[in-house]
């Protein structure tokens, strides 16, 4: 798995939100995107998964250009901004509805990912009654459940307690060992330093610094 961003630029109403970003990322590594609020982290993640159509530049995933040959990468798991689910469904049913689209995983695998993120005991509780942390965990589970080769997570530790953050870290490390390409965006420098192999610092839509861990 590799991801290549060629001079990605996004201009909305005259404002340059992403300014010629060039990146080459490969599988089996965790990358950190560090930046202040409004620096362009989320937009860059959206561009990586095809949700954002760049004004200039291209995104290539394994040699396939997004927006031309396909809209979105075939094997991607994404958590961007607040995870949204159907309020009247349980955690399992929400994941089941999403998993049914690709039909790549069984019910047992859904239950297993729910266990892994710490939602194994939420049973018949409906999403509308979830706490913020539980909602975030469900968002993480949705992003990881189909064992994607490309994982994009935006502020994944938001609303999580310390134990859940540690659990998430170990899940991501396991996925890295399995060869997944993981990009984690966060404003939290320390968190990224604990997790990422390489960190890109983004400011005003530009990569201004690259640090290897």
């Amino acid at each position, binding site marked *: 798995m590799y991801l290549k961003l060629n001079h990605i630029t996004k201009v909305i109403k005259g404002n340059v939100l992403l300014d010629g970003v060039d990146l080459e990322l490969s599988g089996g590594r965790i990358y950190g995107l560090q930046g202040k609020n409004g620096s362009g982290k989320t937009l860059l993640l*959206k561009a990586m*998964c*095809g*949700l*954002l*159509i760049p004004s200039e530049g291209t995104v290539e995933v394994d040699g396939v250009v997004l927006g031309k040959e*396909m*809209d*979105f990468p075939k094997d*991607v798991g*994404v958590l*961007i*901004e*607040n*995870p*949204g*689910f*159907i*309020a*009247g469904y349980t955690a399992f049913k929400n994941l089941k*509805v*999403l998993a*049914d*689209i*690709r*039909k790549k995983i069984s019910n047992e695998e859904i239950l297993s990912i729910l266990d892994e993120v710490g939602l194994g005991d939420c049973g018949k509780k409906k999403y509308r009654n979830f706490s913020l942390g539980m909602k975030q965990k469900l968002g993480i589970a*949705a992003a990881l459940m189909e064992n994607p080769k490309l994982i994009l997570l935006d502020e994944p530790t938001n609303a999580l307690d310390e134990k859940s953050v540690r659990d998430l870290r170990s899940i991501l490390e396991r996925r890295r060992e399995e060869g997944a390409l993981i990009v984690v965006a966060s404003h939290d420098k320390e968190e990224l330093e604990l997790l990422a192999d390489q960190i890109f610092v983004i400011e005003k839509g530009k990569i201004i610094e690259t640090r290897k861990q």
Partner: protein
Amino acid sequence: MKSLWKNELNRMLGEKDFRITMVLGCGVAVWHFVQHVYHAEMFALEVPENVYVCWMGASAYRMQSYWYYMIFPLLAVLPYVGSWYEDYHSGYVKSVLLRCDRRSYFMVKGVVMFLSGGLGVTVPLLLNFLLTATRRPLLYPDPFIAIGPQSYCIGSELYYTHPMLYTLLYLMFDFVAGGLIAIGAMLLCTRVNYKFVALILPYGIFYLLNCLGTVLGTNIFAPNFFLIPGIGIENVCSLVMVTLFGALILLTYVRRGSVYEG
């Protein structure tokens, strides 16, 4: 793709809003039947009544008919537009979209939304027609009584020669109108910050057009009249208006769907 259809159809039919709309619409339909058909003397008039002049779509003279067509846009948007609003604003759309592609997702969503609007407005009408048909004969409508489209209305000849076909075609016309209103409200959801605004705005437009019709003394611009089979379409302008409205909505929908950015 198949599972996308299945998910969306299941969601639409399982929505509480869909069931509430059906209860509301069918409630009006049954009320009309009970008051004007079941409890009415069939041979009280000199000319025997028939199903085409008795059912809810026969005219706007009866209270239930008038109000049914006044709440027509609400019946179109209530079943499923609210859930789209929540999906769109909560970010759920992105989760589904990333598992398929823009074209498939927006096509499935659009068709199911169209169906929800169409079903919301036509199921009660169909129910009322069937209920009325259990108590009134399927005779040809009499051109000499006051109920029914005027001779200058589009398709009036068909009404008097093949009334069943006319009624079915008109129900399809209403179905399409309901579906287009639902898709229109779906587009509004992406522009407004309150769900009720998206749900109530089509009704507001409908009401304004009704007022315009009253001021101008014509039904040409008043959909709550020209959507009634028994009144008919007086002027081709009404059809042109619906066609232009439909084309604008569909083109906007396709355009927005193809460039949707989460």
